[in-house]
């Protein structure tokens, strides 16, 4: 039976792993290659690198980190952050990434996802969505230009039930796009997986946004990775059961050694989750 995947996530800035709260207040968590090797030994099911280096000029840093890591690990490696064109994807895959996560560039130009999936295959195109629950429209959205043709993807302000808005540029810009509808649209454009991060929960250790995750997971037929908010092992369990996640991603609980991958897996196995022990 297909297992639920446990994915440690390394946010990489200027060649170091960092971790923040609600996308700010970053603290150093170590060398990415050393951390990746440790996760390989512990039996992580996959590894994700998110390049949060602010400037595009520092692209070579992440390519170097990916290449050095890929040499050391024998599990799937996903890399995201600042992926803007087909060359970015080609360079990351060449450096040793197996999958590439696209975020802001997908919102600005959805056809980019389509082109990327056609060129490299859906299996390596992950669309990353940073979503925040819409409580009141306090942020001034920067609505993408294609939205005139797809008004159905936008939030109206009068939507029934909880709604989530897509943010881009590392959570700095609201877009007015409905996260659930966006995920479906990205599947149509050829995404092979959705990496769904709750901005409300990221770094807070208060648990994944289960409503958000379930809403997206039940609206698409591609796998969904829950991200943002894991603070306890029960959070991971709830993400899989109540949140219907196909994989759970976490950063600080693993980096700061609160839980080991192996310990996490034993916990989930006892709770009846199908996981892989190594």
């Amino acid at each position, binding site marked *: 039976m297909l297992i639920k995947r446990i994915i440690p996530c390394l946010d990489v800035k200027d060649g170091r792993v960092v971790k923040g709260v609600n996308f700010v207040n970053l603290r150093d968590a170590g060398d990415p290659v050393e951390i990746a090797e440790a996760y390989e030994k512990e039996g992580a099911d996959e590894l994700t690198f998110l390049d949060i280096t602010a400037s595009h000029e520092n692209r070579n840093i992440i390519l170097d980190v990916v290449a050095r890591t*890929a040499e050391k690990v*024998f599990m799937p490696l996903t890399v995201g952050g600042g992926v803007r064109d087909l060359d970015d994807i080609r360079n990351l895959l*060449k450096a*040793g990434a197996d999958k590439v996560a696209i975020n802001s560039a997908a919102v600005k130009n959805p056809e980019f996802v389509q082109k990327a999936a056609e060129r*490299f295959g859906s299996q390596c195109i992950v669309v990353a969505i940073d979503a925040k629950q819409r409580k009141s429209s306090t942020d001034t959205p920067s609505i993408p230009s294609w939205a005139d043709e797809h008004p159905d993807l936008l939030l109206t302000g009068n939507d029934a039930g909880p709604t989530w808005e897509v943010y881009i540029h590392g959570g700095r810009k609201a877009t007015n796009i409905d996260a659930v509808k966006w995920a479906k649209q990205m599947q149509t454009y050829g995404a092979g997986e959705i990496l769904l991060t709750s901005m409300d929960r990221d770094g807070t250790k208060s648990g994944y946004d289960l409503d958000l995750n379930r809403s997206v997971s039940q609206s698409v037929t591609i796998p969904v990775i829950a991200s943002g908010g894991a603070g306890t092992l029960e959070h991971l369990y709830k993400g899989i059961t109540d949140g219907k996640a196909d994989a759970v991603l976490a950063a600080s609980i693993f980096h700061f050694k609160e839980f080991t991958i192996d310990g996490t897996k034993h916990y989930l196995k006892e709770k009846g989750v199908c996981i*892989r022990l190594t």
Partner: protein
Amino acid sequence: MIAIIDYGMGNLRSVQKGFEAVGADAIITSDSQKILSAKSIVLPGVGAFKACMDNLDRFGLIDTVQKSIQSGRPFLGICLGLQLLFSQAEEFGSVSGLDILKGKVVGFKDAKLKSDTGEPLKIPHMGWNNVEVKPSHPLFDSVPNRSYFYFVHSYYVVPEDKTTVATTTNYGIDFVSGVHHENIHAFQFHPEKSQRLGLAVLRNFSRLSS
């Protein structure tokens, strides 16, 4: 020397470093002569079936792959490298494959698969799943049966000759995750991405000789 066939598809370096990790020499090449003089051959591949066939053709390697298999030297197909061996695939209409093994490649999506709890199964089939191996398979020496290997695919092979089935995996249905026919070994999963046990499969392959 193992030749990993380079036809512009897939992360060949992953496969190469997998062999390096188990002490085997492997080169990445699209040179027919090098491929035909190698001790054994690996055909990797990710992405779409048609794009892979088109690229094999563009690199002028279809003939080389067929000849290398006919020569009796150990051959390992990975992911698309398994699917391409078959007669035809149903992806985007119907596409012809290398036709080395009789059978077809079909999609999970048409099977409308459900999980144990009745929910629709996600496609691609992405992640780690059990591999049920036929007894005394040479590439699974020191690998326990039903071990986990890493998969990522939306299509699977249906061989006409059931005696070629080497491994099966369950994802809503039991599908063929590996074939073995004479010198041909091919798997739907990625041994190069399957950590310790995947490397064991690569090590066992590297020890085969014709």
